[in-house]
């Protein structure tokens, strides 16, 4: 039985995780993400899960990785400073191909910055924040309903590609309340089990090995060191490293079309907004207030791996406009994939672009 509620984005995130079968949360409270931990603390034990209030964010992500290796769906939630502290072990999760979900309710940075205000300042950090080469998946909700839907989806993606997956939300969507429909059941796709006779890190054509969590009866050695298909360290052979790291990147990047999730409005448009997260709602407002087929909108629900092919949906595009709650982060990704001018519309300080602000930019660049 589905039910309809009027709830906060952060509460909907917790509901989405529970519906997707998340049964472990290790976290450390931080504004503006704390309501997620609070909801999980109340609800996880009743669902047969485990909630641990960890001593800090380094331990939080470490506990999540450990829980994931027991086969549980596991997640943590944090914001800017906590996200920075998690970076080392996020690389460990990428290297060990640990399926897990990290929610970042972004606030103004750098450092402790603006704890109670919204930002999208960690969009490159979630892709490149840990050292070395790897790839990740990041989703960007723009409503309370999507806080539920995309959190649940993040677990499926994390499992399918065995990769840390990020819900990159922000204080605006995390704290706003809207109507949300919570379905009675969510279909869940767990990782493919490790095939009989296969080595623990031996991947097929799709680049993702089957998963044999601890307790599944298979002996698996897990290390952050460069390893061979058995999982044993092999740290000096250039070929072993090249093969492993190229696979870690390719398993996500080559699946860009499968992972992609975006909305297109007016594909024949000449001036095209590209958005993710809450600035998309300002663009939608502008387009409702001034119906005009020459203005288009590409709204990304998945930003990493970046769906560069979606930009080609607009064959007549002359200019791309990109409002972001940062000084211009994802705009670099758009710029390197198109020949047309891509105009960054940065906004920092914690407030969403207003419709009037975007109309001014629109008039300047048409």
């Amino acid at each position, binding site marked *: 039985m589905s039910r309809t509620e*009027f709830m906060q984005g952060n509460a909907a995130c917790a509901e989405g995780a529970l519906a997707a079968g998340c049964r472990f949360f290790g976290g450390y409270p931080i504004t503006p993400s704390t309501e997620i931990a609070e909801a999980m603390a109340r609800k996880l034990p009743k669902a047969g899960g485990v909630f641990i209030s960890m001593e800090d964010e380094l331990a939080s992500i470490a506990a999540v990785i450990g829980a994931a290796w027991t086969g549980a769906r596991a997640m943590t939630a944090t914001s800017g400073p906590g996200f920075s502290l998690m970076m080392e072990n996020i690389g460990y999760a990428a290297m060990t191909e640990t399926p897990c979900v990290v929610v970042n309710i972004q606030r103004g940075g750098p450092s402790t910055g603006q704890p109670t205000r919204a930002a999208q300042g960690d969009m490159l950090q979630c892709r490149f924040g840990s050292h070395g080469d790897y790839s990740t998946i990041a989703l960007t909700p723009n409503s309370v309903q999507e806080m539920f839907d995309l959190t649940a989806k993040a677990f499926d993606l994390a499992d399918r590609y065995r990769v840390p997956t990020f819900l990159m939300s922000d204080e*605006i969507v995390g704290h706003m*309340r*809207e109507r949300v429909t919570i379905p009675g059941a969510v279909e869940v796709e767990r990782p493919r089990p490790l095939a009989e006779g296969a080595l623990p890190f031996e991947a097929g054509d799709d680049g993702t090995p089957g998963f044999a969590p601890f307790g599944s009866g298979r002996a698996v050695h897990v290390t952050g060191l460069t390893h061979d298909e058995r999982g044993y360290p092999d740290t000096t052979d250039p070929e072993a490293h090249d093969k492993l790291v190229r696979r870690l990147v390719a398993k996500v990047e080559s699946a860009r079309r499968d992972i992609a999730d975006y909305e297109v409005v007016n594909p024949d448009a000449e001036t095209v907004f590209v958005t993710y997260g809450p600035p998309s709602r300002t663009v939608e407002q502008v387009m*409702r207030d001034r119906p005009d087929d020459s203005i288009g909108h590409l709204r990304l629900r998945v930003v990493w791996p970046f769906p560069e092919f979606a930009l080609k949906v607009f064959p007549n595009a002359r200019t791309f406009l990109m409002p972001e709650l940062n000084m211009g982060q994802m705009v670099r990704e758009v710029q390197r994939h198109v020949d047309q001018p891509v105009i960054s519309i940065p906004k920092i300080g914690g407030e969403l672009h207003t*419709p009037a602000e975007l109309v001014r930019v629109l008039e300047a660049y048409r």
Partner: protein
Amino acid sequence: MRHEIRFSGYGGQGIILSAVILGRAAALYDDKYAVQTQVYGPEARGGASMGQVVIDDEPILYPEVTEPDIYVIMSQQGFEKYGIRAGMDAVMLLDADLVRSRPDCRHYEIPATAEAKGALGREIVANIVMIGALVTATGVVSREAIERAVLDSVPKGTEELNQKALKRGFELGERA
């Protein structure tokens, strides 16, 4: 039609809860759309607190309040911080005993705290009196919807008191 409603008062009056109840009434019981937001500052009990709601018949795209058309003000500091710039077309309900200033726009003086303390015997329901007055003075949501949303949101055992407070608010708003 889009309405933007702003509530302000001091921390502890239930200002944020008022905004949540109104949003809930619109979104769950009146078949409208609502987005509720609030100022997330370090407002401790006593400081100026503010919560807002956008209500519309069609889906709400831009979620923030830009120029409220309805204000509910329950403290002088709240007026000075969040009410003083009200536009001439706005409507303001203010708690007559707690707000000294009066805006230039149309405004109704609602003795919510006095009623709560006096006839109702519990100061804590002043915000519910105010919500009742808001509903009959502006019609922004229906009486039935607000009643259900209030009952959803108040602690068990206080339903009767809150229903009385709401009803008193309806009467004060009708007279406004």
